[in-house]
């Protein structure tokens, strides 16, 4: 084990022995590319010609006026190809897979966003592709499953455990320990054993690099606060990392408050008492677990935040006080989503809407001289079934009913 990757007391590489060699190799390759300026240029080139980086920052004038508070800017990761920041990570890992000369990729997915992104990358680079997805998520994110399959990926519904994201990760590891010679596991967030937290953050750092430059160019100063939602933590790491050295910029990570902290139906690891430090899925961090160390069920309206663990780097930043963590409830999230759609004509993903919800809560208390930046990690089109249900749209129900009747006629 050549390198283990700790951030304060968090991180590490708690690996089954069978994977140690694979990880050593991965760490080697990653260290190579990290120190190779040509690689980053190649990466930027792919992201600009295949996706559309740099993604812009958008001034949200109407929201700003609505809250009569700080100027609100939005970093538009929703404009990425496949509709979320997930593209940054998969394309980066895809380039690495090419260097490693492997021919197959696997991935876990919760919201389906990372699965679609990985399947897309696999199509583009000509890799075989298998996606593990909890059975519950397969049900609630069928459109994404459909696209993964159209993209040529095999989607395997995981029927074990709580049948959501964490179980999909376990299944992906089980595949990997069998097929590591040909296969790379494209982990979708800044979690898992070293080097994944660092590597995923590295590829996502393109968000913060761009954002810092853009906001300085547009406003001539840095934002007072930056908001990002936190599932595994990759989009948050992506945007925050651009501002770590700017001590006056407050970084706010927003977790999934679900039905509220008291309900226990949430996915709040860094700002709730229901979580504690543990080791699972190959790394040490805050997990939602019971006193025996068994993982709890989590809940969020946003499938992509419905996860028991969190990036060890964020756990460390929390301990160090560099990032403040908050939670937004499902209800607050739907409200923030609705307001954002109506005021700005952008449709944040339910995940991203957590960042908006918290920003909206704090904005009225801030000065008009201030400026804040919200990371819109993805677009909400994919969430139509969930959002239509959340707003309980009768015409949508009627449409689905008619469609079903036609199928079964």
């Amino acid at each position, binding site marked *: 084990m050549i390198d283990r990757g700790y951030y304060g007391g968090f991180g590490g*590489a708690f690996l*089954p022995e*069978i994977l140690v*060699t694979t990880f050593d190799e991965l760490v080697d390759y990653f260290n190579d590319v990290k120190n190779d300026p040509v690689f980053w240029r190649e990466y930027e080139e792919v992201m600009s010609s295949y996706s559309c980086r740099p993604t812009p920052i958008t001034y949200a004038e109407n929201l700003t006026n609505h809250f009569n508070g700080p100027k609100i800017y939005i970093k538009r990761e929703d404009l990425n190809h496949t509709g979320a920041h997930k593209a940054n990570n998969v394309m980066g890992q895809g380039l690495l897979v090419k260097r490693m000369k492997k021919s197959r990729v696997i991935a876990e997915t919760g919201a389906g966003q990372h699965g679609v992104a990985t399947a897309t990358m696999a199509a583009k680079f000509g890799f075989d592709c298998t996606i593990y997805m909890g059975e519950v998520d397969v049900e609630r994110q069928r459109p994404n499953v459909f696209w993964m399959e159209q993209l040529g990926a095999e989607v395997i519904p995981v029927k074990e*455990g709580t049948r959501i994201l964490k179980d999909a990760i376990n299944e992906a590891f*089980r595949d990997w320990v069998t097929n590591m010679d040909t296969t790379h596991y494209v982990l979708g967030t800044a979690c898992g054993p070293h080097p994944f937290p660092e590597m995923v953050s590295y590829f996502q750092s393109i968000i913060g690099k761009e954002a810092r430059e853009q906001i300085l160019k547009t406003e001539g100063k840095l934002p007072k606060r930056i908001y990002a939602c936190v599932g595994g933590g990759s989009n948050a790491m992506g945007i925050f990392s651009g501002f770590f050295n700017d001590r006056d910029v407050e970084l706010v990570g927003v977790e999934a408050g679900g039905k509220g902290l008291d309900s226990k139906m949430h996915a709040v690891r860094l700002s709730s008492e229901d979580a504690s430090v543990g080791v699972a899925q190959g790394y040490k961090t805050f*997990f939602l*677990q019971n006193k025996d*160390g068994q*993982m709890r069920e989590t809940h969020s309206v946003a499938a992509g935040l419905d996860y028991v663990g969190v990036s060890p780097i964020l756990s460390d930043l929390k301990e160090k006080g560099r990032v403040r963590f908050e939670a937004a409830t499902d209800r607050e999230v739907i409200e923030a989503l609705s307001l954002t759609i109506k005021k700005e004509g952008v449709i944040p993903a339910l995940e991203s809407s957590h960042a908006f919800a918290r920003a909206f809560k704090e904005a009225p208390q801030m000065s008009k001289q201030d400026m804040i930046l919200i990371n819109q990690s993805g677009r909400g089109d994919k969430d139509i079934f969930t959002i239509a249900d959340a707003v309980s749209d009768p015409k949508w129900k009627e449409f689905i009913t008619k469609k079903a009747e036609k199928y079964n006629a």
Partner: protein
Amino acid sequence: MLRDYLENRLKEKKILLMTHIVLGYPTFDDAYKIIESMVEAGVDLMELQIPFSEPIADGPVILQANQKSLSGGSTVSQCFEFAHKVVERFNIPFLFMSYYNILYKYGVSQFVRDAAETGIQGFIVPDLPPEEGEEYLIAAENHVTSPIFIFSPTTSDDRMKYLASHGKGFIYCVARKGVTGAGTDFSDHLNSYLKRSRQATELPLALGFGVKSKSDVDFLKGKVDIAVIGSETIRLVDREGVGAVSEFIKNLNTD
């Protein structure tokens, strides 16, 4: 000590048998009966798996046993009580097998001490490489129990030596890539891997992952010291009930 026990036994038998059960599966009572049959059928040592919600290195059979045990309400303290009972009752070494979080949440040193005091002779923690196991290794040392480490076909010679230098009792060689429970091809291509393993350590070698029949065990004779039966007994219990265990083990155990 575990190693001494094994080496003594090996003077009497060509190959030892280690079996594996998941605690609380199907129930603690059944688990007890299974152990009883196994010991009676001549098993030489046993792994008691404390169920964990994320058993990343296990295949479907053991995975589901973990889940069913947990949804039946099994707790870590029940596992300790149960271990206490079987250690008292049966005269073979028992090991705890689990994932690191179970130790971590309990408190690693305390876990090792309490287990040692219970009479548990060793630990298999598949997601804990020595690099991450400082506290664990010290505690095992202090309480004179054996941390068992794992070799795999992908492990380099150097790393085998490194692992062996931290291991006690025996080395657990996984027969192939993959998780528990899948089939293994017991044929000559295992030989060079086992030869490498033998060269890396003087500890006894156990081989697990996919051992399910008398012929598998026979194949391993002379190559390793312990054959590990894992998923296959769970499958058997699922299929034919606790009563079938005894005969199955006896058959494996004939010389």
